[in-house]
């Protein structure tokens, strides 16, 4: 048996330990460290809400769209590579984003993978191109072809899209569902000749220090 003084010392230590054991500041707080963001299947029911659009989604989605576009008959079986103009996509979500990144990546994927099956018209450059043509027409700069001849290409198709979102916020966290949809519209008939979409749902709960 331990001597009395050692027992007393141990009792004091135990009392201190008991004192500290009761000092959890997060008592009664669920998930004090938060719940890491997890990616779910869109058809999977999550427990809460989520976060924004990330690069891996952009890569996955634009790869899927580019493959999908190349498979449609209007592109795959066209005698002459159809000309496509990109129209800005509309962001209907709650996440501000550089919208051009989607169409730019689809265009680069198509240009690199389609082996000339489709061509894109650079409408972003129109003002610069028109200015250059005027310089040629006025004789201020040289021209390798007749500058009075209209050679700017017209669009066969318009490629555009939109981002729609749905947000849920509860005491268990925040969940965000984003639907990315893209379409190819025939410039002559206004018919939508192709359309495809992708969905992402995310959820998470921030650290209790921020709630």
């Amino acid at each position, binding site marked *: 048996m331990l001597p009395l*003084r050692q027992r007393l010392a141990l009792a004091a230590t135990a009392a201190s330990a008991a004192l500290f054991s009761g000092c959890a500041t997060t008592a009664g707080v669920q998930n004090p460290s938060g719940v890491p963001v997890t990616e779910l299947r869109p058809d999977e029911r999550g427990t809460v809400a989520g976060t924004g659009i990330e690069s891996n989604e952009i890569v996955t989605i634009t790869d899927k769209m580019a493959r999908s576009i190349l498979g449609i008959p209007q592109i795959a079986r066209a005698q002459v590579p159809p000309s496509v103009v990109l129209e800005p996509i509309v962001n209907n979500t709650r996440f*501000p984003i550089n919208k051009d990144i989607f169409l730019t990546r689809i265009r680069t994927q198509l240009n690199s993978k389609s082996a000339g099956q489709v061509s894109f018209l650079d409408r972003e450059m129109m003002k610069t191109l028109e200015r250059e043509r005027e310089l040629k027409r006025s004789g201020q700069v040289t021209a390798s072809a007749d500058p009075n001849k209209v050679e700017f290409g017209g669009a066969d198709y318009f490629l555009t899209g939109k981002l729609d979102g749905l947000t849920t916020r509860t005491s268990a966290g925040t969940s965000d569902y984003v639907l990315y949809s893209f379409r190819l519209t025939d410039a002559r008939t206004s018919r939508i000749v192709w359309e495809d979409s992708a969905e992402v749902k995310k959820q998470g709960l921030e650290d*209790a220090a921020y709630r």
Partner: protein
Amino acid sequence: MNPACPATRTPLAPTAGPVARVGPSRRPAQPAEENASRPPAAPAARAAALLAATLVLAGCATPPETPRDARRRGADGATAADRAAPAIPERDRVLHDYRAAATALRAGRFDEAKARLDDAIARIGGIITNDADAAKARSLFAAESTKTFIGEPYERVMAYYYRGILYWRDGEPDNARACFRTGQLIDSDPEQKKTYSSDYVLLDYLDGFASAKLAADGSDAFARAQAQAGESRPLPPYLPAANVLLFAEYGYGPKKYAAGPYREQLRFRADDSPSRSARLVLDEGRLVVPLPAYDDLGYQATTRGGRVMDHILGNKAYFKASADTAGDVALVGAVIASEQARRRERHGKDGDDANLAALGLGLAGLISKVAAAATRTEADTRQWDNLPQRLSFAAVRLPPGEHRGRLEFLDRDGQPLESRAQSVAFTVRADERDTIVFLSELKR
């Protein structure tokens, strides 16, 4: 160096000092032979004291220096930019971004404001989990302010609001709308009643207005905004043909302070500014654009409801009070036991047991008092200190070209506050993009 550590250590000394004087050391001197026969102060007791001190100081571990810190310190490889940049703790980076963005916006340095807000939003836009600083802020011996600052909801809302204005200025009303929607979401509080949740009038109004500009249906958002504003304040119907959007702000925003016996309660002080409304007088008085206050940040700050962190700070305060009381009781017990030992020894009886009891109680009391003193209960009062109080908006159609006028701020009776009036000049764009005019009573 971890800036939290000095603050944690500081209270220990003054509190621990007096406690040490009334502890077991006041035991009367013993005859030399008696002291020689007694073993030196129990090793187990010393070990316990050492363990307790280790526990208390464990929270003061200094994090390793980051490469950026090292560069700033002037180590090899420091760039001129590193040396020029003020040493801002990473945990306060968002706070500095907020303040600088507001200042840049008011000075017309829109690119700088965008960069600052994007930097802040990159941090506040995600979901922070498993963060070491946040965990530390929740612990007993570190203050809430050790966590990375992202601000209270009204501050985060304003970051998105300002960024939304800048997106609109860049011809991206859909991204502006995204910012307004996120702002409204940040103001939602699933833990509280719906009354004050997502109740910014302007955020819903601008959400719908952006939709109307994009040829979409903004009626739902308008209805929500009108419901928030109340029947007594009819909102102007959307004017999609408007080409000039006026965003105005006036008054000084809410201030944070810590209240409660242990400063564990975060409170807000919202002083009512004399500028209750505003108007823009253009083209020598031929056009007067009212700029009523649609939102009040003082109201928003004080009606958001409680935080989970308040509960944690409450627990810290409870622990601090309990530990302090337990320390008092133990130390009083130690004094009584010591006195009893002396009395027994004066009567020639053995006082060892009482002395040991005094030692044990004194040790426990000391640990309790040190723990109480080291507990950091203070609410985080870091704040975005150059926010306005009131927010306003108006949309008008004006011919392209330069326009000059006068921005007047009105008191509660609708009378102009002459000393606060400002001259205004802006140029309306000739292209399809909206002209954004940002008007602020605040100078910085």
